[in-house]
């Protein structure tokens, strides 16, 4: 299975006013800093009913009976529903990853449990009422009789013979097995002088957007409207249509202000469908807003891979091959695309390195836990983590400097086809590493490190050189006949010049904090000759603009931004023809300069966009055959993915008495192509680093062996605070991609994909004198302390390892 070639997109002129590339302040911010923004939970409609959900305390059980009588009698309660009331549902949650030739097991996952539960927190009943406190009281009065079944939470145990089986109809806990080879992997390891192998656990985490999920559904005049804290309003509409059996034109989905996503709102949740179903059933608006405890339990989780990694090399450090076996804990049921996530690890298995052979073998596993799906990075952070840490282990084995090993194997020719068929578009891996080292001053650090060790202070440095795949993506490669995703991955845009010359730009992407209203306005402004202030970017409403594919996988700029640039260029082209007609010149002689369309060499012969719009909307004198109006659509389906890259370095200090880890310095040099707005890039890098620092140091969703989530609040699940992290030293290089005319790649996930191995490597570097060679995340004080004790106890100060 391969990706299509990186055919060079035709380069077009922005003709611009030079807004692209500048750190403009965000257009979004005035409403956000004054409390004037409207998030879903800020809205109430007349007659709104609040929903409270009865959730299973059992991780695996048959439902023997549900008694709703007492709850129904509670004051203010309008209705209590269970699955038995929902026989009119047209379909369970569709899972859209259907890889050709692969047996994929997809259990029916209904909004309310049907006959049994498979994870703690599974929705069993819903209570509707007029007061949001009293529905919670009433939910506590619903009596469910469960018959507990044996529980399995460890994915490796779930694969063993004799494990409890979660879905009897399959007779196995294997969700799917999938393999992506490239090159002669058997020969690669046969011919290697050195082979290193590691087992790396990449633990389960939460997206933890600060806005909890909220859904407000209204059924009125035979039509459904859903306001949802979603990243994917257009996709949501399709899925609501499938599940509820309502034709698409009768459904409107609106994503109003959305308070962060990080992948966790790239989903269509059971509660979302349930709110719609309840609104249709009762004829009243229905609102459900999750509590944080519910968020932790049943907003999809991320990561949760066990990775068996093997890298082979010649004695001189030349790599011969890499193999990864990934065990992906999928949880008990799927939502819309969980099983595809580990396959994104396979996309980047070659990292920045010229491996002649690669292979990824994936097995997905059912366990009695909640669903895993896309969280910031989605498969690529896991891959970077295991590639980079195994490269470090190889360097150690070869007695080679880890950076020298990397440099010896960096890919330097682009475009570059990897053995598994993917084509890296452009890159300069030495360039980002050079710049990172310049900022870091490695020699200075090594001197400081040695001096500090004399005083019993343990500091270390770790590196991560990464490449990631984003800009999803070419539909031919990703779609049903390729990767197996049941959808297209184009993006849409519509640029509409209004009669006064103001501009409305519709985009199919659906931002939730990224700043697209600003960045996209800059792109349009340069192409139509106005200021970004008069370009209003509209998103997140299926009743406006064309069908879009929304925001995830760092795709918004590389696909959606390109679509909007191309739509704006169509406007520019039509404007040129109108101006040429009015000025009796040839269209190719009209240039956009200083906000005016003017005849080249005759600055006096010029028209503003407003004047052009006047001609277009009072079409008394347009060129023969030209339609009235100034309104253009573009659907852009990219010819390839884009491949951002960079080099990160982390310096940590470890208190060997307590095991506490502090990040002392963090240097990040990233390349996402030319900047549209450098300020927005910087913000994404900062946030991306802290997201991964959280996973590396603090955050973990822990289930006990009985299937109970024991880190289910922000008390136990430790997000990094301002006091836990330092300021970062960031810089960029700019290597354009030929995949789109803007030359841009993606940046929303890059730092999260890069960061975690640098943190772990820095701690291992700090503790190397104590014999520690490996620690799994999160690097909690207890885990570090145990690793030190194990290393000291087992093999003395200069040998052995701990895991």
């Amino acid at each position, binding site marked *: 299975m391969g990706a299509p070639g990186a055919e060079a997109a035709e380069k077009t002129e922005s003709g611009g006013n030079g807004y692209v590339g500048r750190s403009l302040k965000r257009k979004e*911010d005035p409403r956000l800093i004054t409390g004037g923004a409207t998030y879903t939970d800020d809205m109430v409609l007349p007659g709104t009913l609040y929903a409270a959900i009865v959730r299973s305390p059992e991780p695996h059980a048959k439902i023997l009976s549900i008694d709703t009588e007492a709850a129904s009698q509670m004051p203010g309660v309008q209705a209590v529903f269970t699955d038995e009331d929902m026989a009119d549902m047209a379909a369970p949650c569709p899972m859209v990853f259907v890889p050709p030739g692969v047996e994929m097991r997809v259990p029916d996952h209904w909004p309310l449990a049907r006959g049994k539960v498979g994870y703690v927190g599974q929705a069993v009943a819903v209570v509707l009422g007029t007061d949001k*406190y009293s529905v919670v009281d009433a939910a506590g009065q619903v009596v469910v009789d469960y018959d507990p079944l044996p529980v399995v939470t460890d994915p490796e145990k779930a694969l063993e013979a004799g494990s409890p089986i979660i879905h009897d109809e399959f007779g196995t806990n294997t969700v799917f097995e999938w393999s992506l080879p490239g090159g002669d992997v058997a020969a690669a390891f046969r011919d290697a002088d050195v082979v290193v192998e590691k087992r790396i656990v990449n633990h389960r985490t939460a997206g*933890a957007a600060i806005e909890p999920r909220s859904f407000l559904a209204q059924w009125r005049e035979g039509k459904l409207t859903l306001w949802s804290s979603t990243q994917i309003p257009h996709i949501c509409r399709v899925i609501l249509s499938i599940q509820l059996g309502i034709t698409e034109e009768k459904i409107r989905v609106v994503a109003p202000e959305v*308070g962060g996503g990080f992948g966790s709102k790239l989903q269509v949740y059971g509660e979302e469908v349930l709110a719609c179903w309840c609104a249709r059933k009762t004829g009243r608006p229905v609102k459900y807003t999750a*509590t*944080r405890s519910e968020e932790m339990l049943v907003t999809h989780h991320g990561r949760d891979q066990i990775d068996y990694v093997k890298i082979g090399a010649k004695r001189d450090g030349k790599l011969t091959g890499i193999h990864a076996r990934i065990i992906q804990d999928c949880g008990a049921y799927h939502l819309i695309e969980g099983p595809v996530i580990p396959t994104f690890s396979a996309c980047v298995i070659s990292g920045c390195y010229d491996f002649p052979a690669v292979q990824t073998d994936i097995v997905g596993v059912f366990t009695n836990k909640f669903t895993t799906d896309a969280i910031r990075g989605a498969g690529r952070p896991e891959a970077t983590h295991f590639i980079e840490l195994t490269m470090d282990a190889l360097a150690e084995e070869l007695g080679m400097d880890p950076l020298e090993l990397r440099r010896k194997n960096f890919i330097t020719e682009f475009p570059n086809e990897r053995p598994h068929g993917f084509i890296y578009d452009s890159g300069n891996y030495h360039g980002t590493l050079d710049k990172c080292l310049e900022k870091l001053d490695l020699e200075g650090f090594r001197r400081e490190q040695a001096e500090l060790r004399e005083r019993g202070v343990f500091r270390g440095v770790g590196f991560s050189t990464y490449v990631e795949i984003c800009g999803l993506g070419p539909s031919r490669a990703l779609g049903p006949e390729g990767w197996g995703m049941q959808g297209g991955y184009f993006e849409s845009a519509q640029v509409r010049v209004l009669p006064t010359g103001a501009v409305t730009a519709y985009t199919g992407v659906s931002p939730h*904090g990224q700043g697209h209203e600003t960045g996209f306005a800059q792109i349009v402004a340069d192409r139509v000759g106005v200021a970004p202030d008069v370009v209003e970017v509209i998103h997140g409403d299926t009743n406006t603009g064309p069908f879009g594919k929304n925001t995830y996988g760092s795709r918004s700029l590389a696909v959606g931004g390109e679509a909007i640039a191309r739509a704006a260029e169509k406007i520019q082209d039509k404007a040129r023809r109108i101006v040429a007609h009015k000025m009796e010149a040839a269209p190719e002689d009209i240039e956009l300069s200083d906000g005016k369309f003017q005849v080249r060499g005759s600055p006096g012969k010029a028209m503003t966009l407003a004047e052009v719009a006047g001609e277009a909307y009072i079409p008394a004198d347009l060129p023969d055959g030209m339609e009235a109006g100034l309104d253009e659509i573009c659907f852009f389906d990219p010819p390839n993915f884009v491949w951002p890259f960079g080099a990160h370095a982390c310096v940590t200090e470890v208190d060997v008495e307590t095991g506490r880890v502090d990040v002392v310095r963090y240097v990040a040099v990233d390349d996402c192509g030319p900047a549209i707005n450098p300020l927005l890039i*910087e913000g994404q890098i900062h*946030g991306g680093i802290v997201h991964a620092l959280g996973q590396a140091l603090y955050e973990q969703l822990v289930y006990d062996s009985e299937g109970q989530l024991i880190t289910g609040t922000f008390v136990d699940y430790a997000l990094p*605070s301002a006091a836990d992290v330092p300021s970062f030293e960031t810089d960029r290089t700019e290597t354009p991609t030929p995949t789109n005319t803007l030359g841009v790649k993606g940046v929303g996930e890059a730092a999260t994909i890069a960061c975690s191995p640098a943190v772990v490597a820095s701690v291992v570097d700090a503790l190397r004198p104590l014999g520690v060679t490996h620690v799994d995340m999160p690097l909690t004080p207890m885990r570090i302390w145990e690793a030190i004790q194990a290393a000291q106890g087992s093999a003395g100060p200069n040998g052995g390892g701990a895991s």
Partner: protein
Amino acid sequence: MARVSLTVNGVGYTEEVEPRLLLVHLIRDKLGLTGTHVGCDTSNCGACTLHLDGQAVKSCTVLAVQCDGSEVTTIEGIGAEDALHPLQQAFWAKHGLQCGYCTPGMIMAAADLIARNADPSDEDIREALAGNLCRCTGYQNIVKAVRAAAGEMSTASAQPSREEVTA
């Protein structure tokens, strides 16, 4: 039900409330001031931070009935789009926000810090905001914004914001 009289952003209100009603729900659901947000149920995230009798509190851990006779200031009360508070200006200018959900609480907590410490160091700011979680920004630009606002507030009244940012 209990009767509560309080002043919010300079306007007096008298409400009949359940004794268990949280201040944040009074503010959001009864008074319609939705700039104050709810992000958790354990008082960890700080999205609900507002000022109660001049001090920053997490309004998800205060009962409405505790506020009888009190003065409350929310994000809506410290500035407006045409008259921004220096902190609002600085968060905008320094890109101290992305999704904006934590921002009102973050600004109210920062205002409380500056009231206590007119010239906070980065470390002071980071410690003072440790009870307000942000998942988007990585905090660096929030710290920068608070420092800038503190400087602005100690020298003069707010200057008009520049269009372009130098990071």
